[in-house]
């Protein structure tokens, strides 16, 4: 059976009918190719757009919200932070090294396109636990290192999650953060007809053609994906680095009126986006696009996803000055088109118009899937509380599990120090950067706990937001904004679509409850192979302002005699915890939804305690529960005071391994305990004294109703390294 031309470009019969109706004629093959690419799930967000409106932040809370290349929030008057998370899941399965590498390059240029200098990367990775997962992880890490290290943007944080559902659908989500002076505000909108469109960077080849529409907008049929390898792009961090320098130099001329990265669907998407945001049209002459191979058709030029290319809009009289700034770095700059007032994307070849489609039709004409009529909330929850007698070995088993143990083996492969801003790097709750430009710093984190969302996506997504915000405040920072990367299976599957809606609702409700705006994000559907979908996974990136960046609050205490306070309280529910998974019986159960009002109060108490200078060390409760929190604090403590004695109310296990969000341990000087507890009482937040730090390196002692348990430092250190 042969496919129709519209099926070849990925359109459904209904979409094709809508296209013909809107166009008033039959599109030619080039036009069909352009529409097919831009109406792909990856470019059009046709299945998610309507639902994503739930995330819209309250007016006045962000500088730039959903819809641009990256979100922007104000850091201090005159300086702004641009940030976004983006997925490169499908390419990273087909070709893990290049797939991950180009994911890094792409998100860096999205931040650059906001006029921001990229200063940090974080990544959220998810892999299976079988042979494929083990094969993919080191290659993905190498790819990220290959690109990120060379391009000179430090990888300051991240996370790795595991679950069998990611075996043939790894998730590679990368977040980039940049800063800009408010005077350098710019975006994709090419508003001035007559401006020239300047293509800067790499030459255009046949790589990555159909990447967006064929690769990222479909599920994989079965094993492998070998036939799709040519649709993976190839990255060149050397040119990527030069392109950053060149574009920053071009922006410094003050003569650039719009910037856009050539990402998915290449020049087609980039030109359409510039015209859409500017309310203009663009005429692009494919004959003027520098090529790296001969004989490319106009469609190939328009849809190539060759990396390291950006478009700039510049007034005709300024072209020479801007091009010279770019060429200083050995980067090509070529006028390939012009901004028009036609409202159309016109493609020229051989001196004639060979395709012409209204911009609005390209970018917003695709029929979209409506949001669910009812906004999901948390599901009915049954706590999972195991009752067998507690064995202290359970603690070491959880600590040594890949979900909890040290990631040093991964993050030491990344340059986390280049640009010399990194105060707290990978392994910290939040990365903290000191900035030369302003007296405040940045705190950054990314969290994507898929297992919390496996059974109740709403609950897990809300917890993910709480977790990300907690990571900021325990480091002493104040939350400024969130970005989310939503990863799901096929939206055509009603269960997957419902899970997607649950994630969005959970993120939206938690963000609102905590008062942190969502500035945008990314949706990756079709993460399924052979009919098996991933756990619905929200990757939450969070950005905070740090008032004392060279003195962040860290997990490791440095003195004996500090009092450990637990802000928030566990519920003894081990559903979907690292403990549950480390138990190894294949069970998971659901994570319960957080009490968002309580979470907001806990966040407030910790933020205030940090601001008041009461907190000597802090760490939130996350993967592996309080046990892992205390173990990590102990292992990060100064040698000589690696001793802690903790007294728990009730039996040990439920208190130690509950991962309920909105709990943290603060180490406080005895004189400040009353002040913290008073602040907590005023907020209606539990704030129990857990114990004290001691002298010597005696390890961790826990006294509970069911016994007294001791874990020596060596045993904890060994488990944390993963060798038991």
């Amino acid at each position: 059976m042969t496919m129709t031309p519209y099926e070849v470009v990925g359109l459904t019969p209904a979409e094709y009918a809508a296209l013909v109706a809107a166009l008033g004629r039959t599109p030619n093959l080039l036009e069909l190719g352009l529409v097919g690419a831009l109406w792909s799930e990856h470019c059009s967000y046709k299945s998610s757009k309507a639902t994503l409106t739930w995330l819209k932040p309250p007016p006045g809370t962000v500088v730039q919200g959903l819809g641009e290349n990256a979100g922007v929030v104000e850091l201090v008057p005159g300086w702004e932070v641009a940030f976004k998370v983006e997925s490169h899941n499908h390419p990273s399965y087909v070709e893990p090294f290049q797939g991950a590498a180009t994911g890094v390059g792409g998100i860096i240029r999205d931040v650059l396109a906001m006029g921001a200098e990229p200063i940090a990367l974080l990544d959220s990775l998810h892999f299976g636990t079988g042979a494929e997962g083990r094969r993919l992880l080191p290659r993905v890490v190498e790819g990220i290192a290959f690109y990120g290290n060379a391009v000179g943007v430090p990888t300051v944080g991240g996370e790795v999650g595991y679950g069998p559902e990611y075996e043939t659908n790894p998730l590679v989500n990368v977040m980039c953060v940049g800063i800009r002076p408010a005077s350098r505000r710019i975006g994709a909108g090419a508003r001035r007809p007559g401006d020239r469109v300047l293509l800067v960077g790499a030459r255009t080849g046949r790589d990555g053609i159909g990447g967006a529409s064929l690769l990222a907008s479909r599920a994989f049929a079965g094993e492998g994906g070998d036939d799709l390898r040519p649709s993976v792009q190839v990255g060149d961090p050397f040119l990527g680095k030069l392109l950053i320098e060149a574009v920053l130099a071009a922006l410094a001329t003050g003569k650039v009126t719009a910037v856009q990265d050539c990402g998915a669907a290449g020049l087609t998407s980039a030109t359409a986006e510039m015209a859409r945001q500017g309310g203009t049209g663009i005429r692009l002459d494919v004959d003027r696009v520098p090529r790296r191979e001969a004989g490319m058709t106009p469609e190939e030029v328009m849809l190539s996803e060759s990396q390291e290319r950006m478009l700039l809009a510049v007034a005709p009289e300024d072209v020479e000055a801007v091009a010279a700034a770019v060429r200083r770095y050995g980067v090509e700059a070529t006028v390939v088109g012009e901004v028009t007032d036609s409202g159309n994307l016109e493609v020229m070849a051989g001196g004639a118009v060979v395709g012409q489609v209204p911009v609005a039709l390209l970018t917003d004409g695709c029929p979209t899937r409506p949001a669910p009529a009812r906004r999901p909330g948390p599901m009915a929850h049954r706590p999972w509380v195991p009752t067998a007698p507690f064995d202290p070995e359970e603690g070491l088993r959880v600590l040594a599990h890949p979900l909890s143990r040290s990631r040093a083996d991964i993050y030491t492969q990344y340059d986390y120090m280049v640009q010399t801003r990194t105060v707290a790097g990978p392994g910290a709750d939040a990365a903290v950067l000191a900035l030369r430009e302003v007296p405040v710093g940045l705190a950054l984190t990314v969290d994507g706990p898929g297992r919390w969302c496996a059974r109740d996506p709403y609950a897990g997504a809300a917890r993910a937001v709480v977790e990300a915000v907690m990571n900021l405040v325990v480091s002493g920072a104040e939350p400024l904004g969130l970005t989310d990367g939503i990863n799901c299976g096929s939206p055509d599957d009603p269960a997957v679509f419902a899970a997607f809606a649950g994630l969005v609702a959970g993120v939206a409700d938690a963000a609102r409850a905590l008062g942190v705006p969502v500035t945008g994000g990314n949706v990756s559907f079709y993460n399924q192979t052979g009919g098996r979908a991933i756990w619905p996974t929200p990757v939450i990136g969070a950005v905070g302002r740090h008032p004392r960046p060279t003195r962040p609050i860290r997990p490791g205490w440095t003195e004996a005699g500090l009092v450990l306070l637990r802000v928030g309280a566990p519920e003894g529910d081990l559903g979907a915890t690292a403990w549950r998974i480390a138990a190894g019986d294949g069970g998971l159960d659901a994570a319960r939804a957080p009490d968002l009002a309580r979470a907001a109060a806990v966040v407030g108490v910790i933020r205030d305690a940090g601001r008041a200078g009461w907190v000597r060390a802090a760490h939130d409760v996350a993967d592996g529960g309080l046990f892992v929190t205390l173990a990590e604090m102990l292992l990060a403590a100064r040698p000589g005071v690696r001793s802690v004695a903790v007294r728990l109310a009730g039996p040990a296990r439920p208190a130690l391994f509950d991962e309920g969000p909105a709990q943290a341990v603060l180490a406080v000087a005895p004189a400040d305990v009353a002040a913290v507890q008073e602040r907590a009482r005023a907020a209606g937040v539990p704030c129990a004294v857990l114990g004290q730090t001691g002298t010597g390196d005696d390890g961790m002692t826990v006294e509970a109703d069911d016994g007294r348990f001791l874990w020596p430092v060596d045993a904890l250190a060994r488990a944390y390294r993963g060798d038991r």
Partner: protein
Amino acid sequence: MTVAVIAFPGSNCDRDVVYALQSLGVEARWMWHTEVDLEGVGGVVLPGGFSYGDYLRSGALAAHSPAMPAVRRFARDGGPVLGICNGFQILCEAGLLPGTLGLNVSRRFQCSVEHVRVAAAPASLRLEPGEVLTLPIAHREGRYYAPPDVLAELWRHGQVVLQYADAGGQVDPAVNPNGSVDNIAGVANRAGNVVGLMPHPERAMAEWFGSADGRRFFARWAGAGGTAA
């Protein structure tokens, strides 16, 4: 004193070095590799990064950059030249320093904080032999190698400058992060005016970096010291 920090295409520590020197009160001038002018310059730094994307071999292409004839003349006239990380690789490729830098034994990029012991103090770097500095490394090709006869010469003439060591200054193969011969982290030319090292002193300029030993390092390099210890 004015120091020229030369940026090659793909260098990515160039501005970090400029900031580090400026924080010591040194006048540091950023120079793009095609626009190098060493008139009135008292020292040259070749910074770290991935010049020319590490294509061919690390440092191999930058060693033929338009900047290098001027750097060679400067070095030949006794001017202090410091190569950090990729800059060290470039100096080796350019023949301004003996030996070569190969792939780490782990075959991986490694970013971590290490200790180095000062083995000898060449003319341009007046550190105290035996002192220990805590400095970060970040490289994939940092495994220093020189053939046995060259190595013997380096030792004889005090050209082995830095060795990876433990916190107490013991030079132990177990703390060698890349498998370099004799734990070597940095070397000098015979005259002592050209020095290359893999660690990044510009990443150790305050306690909040994890170490402030880079201040001491730059202060002792070519009298660039300014106000530092």
